[in-house]
């Protein structure tokens, strides 16, 4: 077992809207070991991106951390004042590749200018030194270092995504959160970016949280996978277990809904209904209105995560 670089305990982050709190992250507990990739999967609105933002210490307004603890390398970050977070934690200890970040590059500045900003502010580097480091990181992600002098519009989508990855890595954070890093890309480019992330993981020993709705991509890179439903982790374990012996009915149904490239599937399964409104989540197990095996107990009591196998946990009364 490796060293735990991130420990999240009973984390709750609610969005306080005028209609009441939306329980986007509701009592979530997990760990991340050094050099490990944890995949976080679920349908839209299940709270997976909200976890990413919360770990960065910047839940999107009107969201607030209600309770729980986030420890990065043993240091508690919940409750730290904003200026400490900004100076010492965010981007230095934990960084994030945002969904669609490649389209957020500023069109009027060169790539280099945008990449060296954190180095100058956080590390107090000189311009030349910072530029050299930026070039080193561009090379690391498989780009020509001369790109520092180019503007975003001169690059293709795949190249921009590589720039964004390099920027997230440039302060050498302990943890990188990647939120749908390949979603807007074509399959060939997507495969290239996944290859790049695999290489970086090996070379730099990156610890990463990989957030996506696409279970196929997740299988390509994750050591462990957590499946989220309606703000909760319903199953977490080593990827081999999750994909080959899923324990939770939701995971089973999700996997049965994926069309396979090289297998004949007579009929795809789907989950009737839609995910619940998190203003008013269902009582008991949140999946019970859509679950084919729902019993009375599921409607009344909330299941806790139980160990079904070594390191493999699921929250379901059937187990």
């Amino acid at each position, binding site marked *: 077992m490796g060293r735990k670089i991130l420990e999240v305990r009973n984390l709750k982050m609610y969005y306080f809207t005028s209609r009441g709190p939306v329980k986007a992250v509701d009592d979530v507990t997990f760990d991340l070991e050094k050099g490990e990739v944890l995949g976080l999967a679920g*349908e*839209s609105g299940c709270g997976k991106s909200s976890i990413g933002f919360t770990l960065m210490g910047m839940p999107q307004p009107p969201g607030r951390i209600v309770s729980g603890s986030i420890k990065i390398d043993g240091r508690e970050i919940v409750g730290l004042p904003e200026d400490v977070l900004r100076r010492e934690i965010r981007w230095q200890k934990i960084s994030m590749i945002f969904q669609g970040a490649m389209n957020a590059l500023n069109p009027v500045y060169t790539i280099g200018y945008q990449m060296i900003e954190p180095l100058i502010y956080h590390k107090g580097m000189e311009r030349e030194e910072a530029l050299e480091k930026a070039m080193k990181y561009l090379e690391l992600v498989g780009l020509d270092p001369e790109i520092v002098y180019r503007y975003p519009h001169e690059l*293709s989508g*795949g190249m921009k995504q590589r720039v964004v990855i390099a920027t997230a890595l440039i302060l050498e954070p302990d943890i990188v959160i990647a939120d749908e890093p390949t979603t807007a890309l*074509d*399959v*060939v*480019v*997507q*495969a*290239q970016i*996944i*290859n790049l992330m*695999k*290489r970086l993981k090996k070379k730099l020993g990156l610890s990463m949280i990989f957030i996506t*709705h*696409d*279970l*196929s*991509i*997740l*299988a*390509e*890179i*994750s*050591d462990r996978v957590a499946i989220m439903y309606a703000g909760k982790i319903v199953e977490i374990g080593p*990827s*081999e277990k*999750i*994909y*080959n012996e899923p324990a939770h009915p939701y995971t089973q*149904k*999700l*996997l049965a*809904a*994926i*069309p*396979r*490239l*090289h297998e*004949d*599937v007579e*009929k*795809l*399964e*789907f*989950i*009737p209904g*839609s995910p619940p409104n998190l203003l008013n989540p269902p009582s008991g197990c949140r999946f019970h209105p859509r679950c084919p095996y729902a019993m009375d107990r599921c409607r009344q009591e909330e299941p806790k995560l139980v160990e079904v196998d070594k390191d493999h946990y699921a929250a379901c009364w059937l187990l």
Partner: protein
Amino acid sequence: MSEPVLKVVNLKKYFPVRRGLLASLRGEPPKFVRAVDGVSFEVHKQEVFALVGESGCGKTTTGKLVMKLLEPTDGKIYLEGQDVTELRTKEEIKAYRRKVQMIFQDPFSSMNPRFRIYDVLEEPLLIHGIGETRAEREELIYKALEMVKIVPPEEYVHRFPHMLSGGQRQRVAIARALILNPTFIVADEPVSMLDVSIRAEILELMKELKEKMGVTYLYITHDLSTARYFADWIAVMYLGRIVEMGPAKEVIDNPIHPYTRALLTAVPEPDPSRKDVIKELPIKGEVPSAVNIPPGCRFHPRCVYFQKGLCDKKEPQMIEYSHNHWVECHLAGKI
């Protein structure tokens, strides 16, 4: 074989690129984006024909040409033997639109947010003058909603689109396409914006409608896995041309063209056993611009099997590699 429902012959669509003042003063020749550059295929009754490719390969433009939302630069489109490119008058085009309907990618923006579901479905009926009385139209609307399993329809007709989930909205979009009882449906990425579980639901529904109602589809997608599941035929497009075409399973299990092979290698699969393997992708570089299409085989700068003097000089012809399996590559069968 029976007469195809849709037949496309050597279809071309070039979009002019705006020249600068200087360029036009110098008398430089105008440039064109060759979005669709000589595409031919046939779709038979009650079959699903998938156009697969990456962004910018011309698959959506082909769909729009078939819908007659764009006028082709060259080439012919026949629907049930009738030459579509010859349709000129408003009435002719309107009659054509009744036979060919479209399902769009985004169910959120393809519906008027101020229309109730009833109005969304009534509009095509009013435009085409179907159903004399309100009661008649209402019956058609209820029937269409039942067909796509929005039940009971009474409960939904007075809702606005934002009150439905993504999957329900896409069902309504399908109902709207079906209500005119079309012979042909162009579905442009109908499931790519939906979550996995809903995606399966919509694919199942479209498949069921094909079998029950005899709908014929042109299915436009970037996703080879759903194409394999839903389509009978797959055509892979690259830079405006079909490079490989054949029965869905045959193309996926026995790809001939180097581009198809690369695409298939790149598709991620839900199999964690390969997580530490770095997949070598048999493809180089990036897609060139459709303004400057490479000479010879347009795939040659990216091809790992490139043969100098052949691939960069001579344009390959479409050949029938095996029964019904067409490929456009000089090296077909040799690699």
